[in-house]
């Protein structure tokens, strides 16, 4: 049994924990959530680095009110060797930014090798929490970062369009992870064959495919099953206007259980708040200027929850 050290000294984790914010639909508030979560983490006393991975639509520098001289672009064109060299101070203690601004047009779709290099570097940043803001959509470039994170967080707004895109996004992320697990278990051929005549086998979801593989190849099936059981996406519902939608997150979690066999964790609901809009105009995160307002306290609660989940995951 490992003893907790005495209270008083926060012990920084050895490797940074990586959180990624995605969710499919554009404009639901991914960047707002990422920015304010980052400020909350920093205010709680952990060193946080926000990474703006939305190379086609970088916003974080604007939301934080800093000018982005050097960003991810300089990694891609080899001007800078390490992400640690391009951390921009934000004026908030414990919080730095890796900006996505000034990326060239072709950088929004990095090559596979570049992406792997970037992923490796992300996990080597000298900080406690790395918080990645993803772009909209369900492309591999987004999904690979989402899946690589310790805590993949989906942001959804209570509208049919956002829900629809979120499920599409989740499905794509799960499917990609599933096929990677299939490859690891070395049953790609079997899975491909099963999918090729999926209508004959009635396989419409990864869940059904898994059931099929467990039947055909029990060892591989159980290996894949346990790889997938570790998938714990998180959910934040943002821009809530109707009271009843404060429960939407719980319902989405039940739906994810029933339709995807996935344990999604609902982190909380954020109301639509004009102060959020003003904070963007002022280019100062609400979490920094009004830490006691309702939006900020919910965000802070979510940050605390994630920090503790990470700790439990690391220390058992």
């Amino acid at each position, binding site marked *: 049994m490992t003893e907790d050290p005495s209270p008083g000294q926060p012990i920084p984790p050895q490797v940074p924990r990586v959180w990624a914010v995605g969710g499919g639909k554009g404009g639901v508030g991914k960047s707002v959530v990422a920015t304010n979560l980052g400020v909350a983490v920093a205010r709680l006393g952990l060193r946080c680095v926000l990474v703006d991975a939305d190379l086609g639509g970088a916003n974080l520098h604007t939301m934080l009110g800093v000018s982005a001289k050097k960003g991810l672009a300089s990694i891609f064109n080899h001007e800078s060797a390490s992400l640690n060299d391009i951390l921009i101070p934000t004026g908030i203690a414990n919080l730095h930014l890796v900006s996505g601004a000034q990326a060239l047009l072709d950088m929004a779709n990095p090559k596979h090798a570049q992406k792997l290099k970037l992923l490796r570097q992300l996990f080597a940043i000298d900080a406690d929490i790395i918080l990645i803001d993803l772009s909209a959509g369900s492309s591999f470039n987004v999904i690979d970062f989402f899946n690589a994170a310790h805590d993949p967080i989906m942001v959804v707004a209570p509208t*049919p369009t956002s*829900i*629809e895109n979120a499920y599409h996004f989740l499905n794509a992320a799960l499917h990609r992870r599933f096929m990677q697990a299939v490859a690891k278990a070395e049953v790609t051929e079997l899975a491909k064959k099963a999918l090729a005549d999926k209508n004959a086998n009635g396989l419409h979801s990864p869940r059904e495919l898994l059931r099929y593989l467990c039947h055909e190849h029990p060892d591989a099936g159980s290996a894949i099953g346990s790889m997938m059981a570790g998938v714990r996406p998180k959910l934040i519902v943002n821009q809530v206007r109707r009271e009843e939608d404060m429960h939407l997150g719980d*319902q*989405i979690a*039940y*739906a994810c259980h*029933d339709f995807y066999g996935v344990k999604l964790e609902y982190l909380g609901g954020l109301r639509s708040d004009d102060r959020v809009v003003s904070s963007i105009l002022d280019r100062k995160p609400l979490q920094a200027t009004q830490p006691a307002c309702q939006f900020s306290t919910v965000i802070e609660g979510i940050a605390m929850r994630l920090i503790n989940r990470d700790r439990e995951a690391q220390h058992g």
Partner: protein
Amino acid sequence: MDESYEILGLAPGAERSEVKRAYQRRKELYSRGSLAIYSLASESDRESRLEQVESAYQRILSFMHLHGDEGEHTNSDHSPSAPMPDPEMAPGEYLRWARNQAGLSIRQLADRTKISTMRLDDIESERIDHLPPPVYLRGFVYEFARSLGLVNAFQLSEFYLRRVASGLDD
């Protein structure tokens, strides 16, 4: 039988109150026009899932009836009318009191909060040497209080940290 529990998203042998809650939530999830299943289920799929939920619930109820579980009973070890401890002076005791008021065992709370029973017990008993560093402790206390539906969750985590910082010496 296990399958019926699974349909309600429960582990086999879940308690009656949990079964009832899970049933109500699934019923809401599969109600007409439910936003949470938008694009996931067709109208006929929704209806058949609703029927599944209904019959799973009925099966579990009659199973419970056969096994002599006649329903509501409290499982608190303290009387629900115990006096409320001062949250500022004794936040740990206050949390234990609030948990008992809610009729929850440590085990049930651990399932809800995903915090271990040992840690919850350390928090309630204010076992200062066993508690994690403040940055984490704050979140645990907050989560504990929040999952009991306490509106003063934030304030309580502040009280708790202050109490720990003062070394419980007063």
